[in-house]
């Protein structure tokens, strides 16, 4: 499946322990509603673990992160978890500022060992 929503591209694959949503491009309020619908559709099957691979996502705004957090909340309420995998630097920064590392499981990503609020000077990868 391939969805094209403004600059956000999303695809869904079946993973070993639940669906894997791959996001790439840029996620902002223009695509937040569609992102929310996509996540809700994946949760409708009763999955307890949803992996969202955001390694291809260059930007996510607060509206998009809110959609992810809401999906994570639904999963938590059924004893599950939403795993956000490999955020790029700018996305990791929004997650950090919004403090959602408490609400979602964030795995990997270029922002090594950060998470303590200060504007970190991590050696992030240089990217275009």
């Amino acid at each position, binding site marked *: 499946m391939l969805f094209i929503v403004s600059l956000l591209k999303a695809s869904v694959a079946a993973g070993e322990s639940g669906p894997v949503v791959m996001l790439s491009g*840029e996620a*902002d*309020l223009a695509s937040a509603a569609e992102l929310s619908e996509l996540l809700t559709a994946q949760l409708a099957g009763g999955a307890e673990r949803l992996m969202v691979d955001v390694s291809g996502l260059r930007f996510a705004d607060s509206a998009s992160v809110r959609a992810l957090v809401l999906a994570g909340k639904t999963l938590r309420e059924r004893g599950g978890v939403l795993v956000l995998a490999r955020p790029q630097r700018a996305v990791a920064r929004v997650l950090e500022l919004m403090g959602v590392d408490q609400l979602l499981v964030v795995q990997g990503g270029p922002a090594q060992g950060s998470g303590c609020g200060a504007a970190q000077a991590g050696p992030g990868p240089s990217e275009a």
Partner: protein
Amino acid sequence: MKGNDRRPDPASPGDSAVLAEAQADAGDGQARLALDQAFDSGTLYALRAAVQAHASQAGLPESRTDDLVIAVHELAANAVRHGAGAGRLRMWERDGAVHCQVDDSGSPASDEDVGPGGNVADRWPFLPGHGLWLVRLVADQISVFSGPGGTRAAIVLSLSGNDPSVPAPD
């Protein structure tokens, strides 16, 4: 997307006044208007790209450039969502800091939301996790004024990472 086709008129009156204001505001420092760009719900991506390019050009470190893009986007998104549905960004550099001003011509906040001098910054929903909360976290200065002509939000990020609101010792 349910946005309409309203697009800011690039030749709307008042632009030259704002530019003059920016230049007059420069005082002894040199102000260069780096960016003057209209936006609506369908063009926020282009706004982000332009801000990123100009911030890098101005010498803002990468992590601060990320912060500036986040802050400007959230202000613009706020104008799209809660204001006129469109607006205009001006960005300039002065005295070692990047200044950004986001204007929308939406209906002003109600009287009870407006504090002394029309400043609504303290009444806006700066709740944890809210977009404007992010702006306050990353900007060195923020001010939001609402009046009959709309809302103007301005932020300042220092190029060096030092807070430009702290006056230098005499």
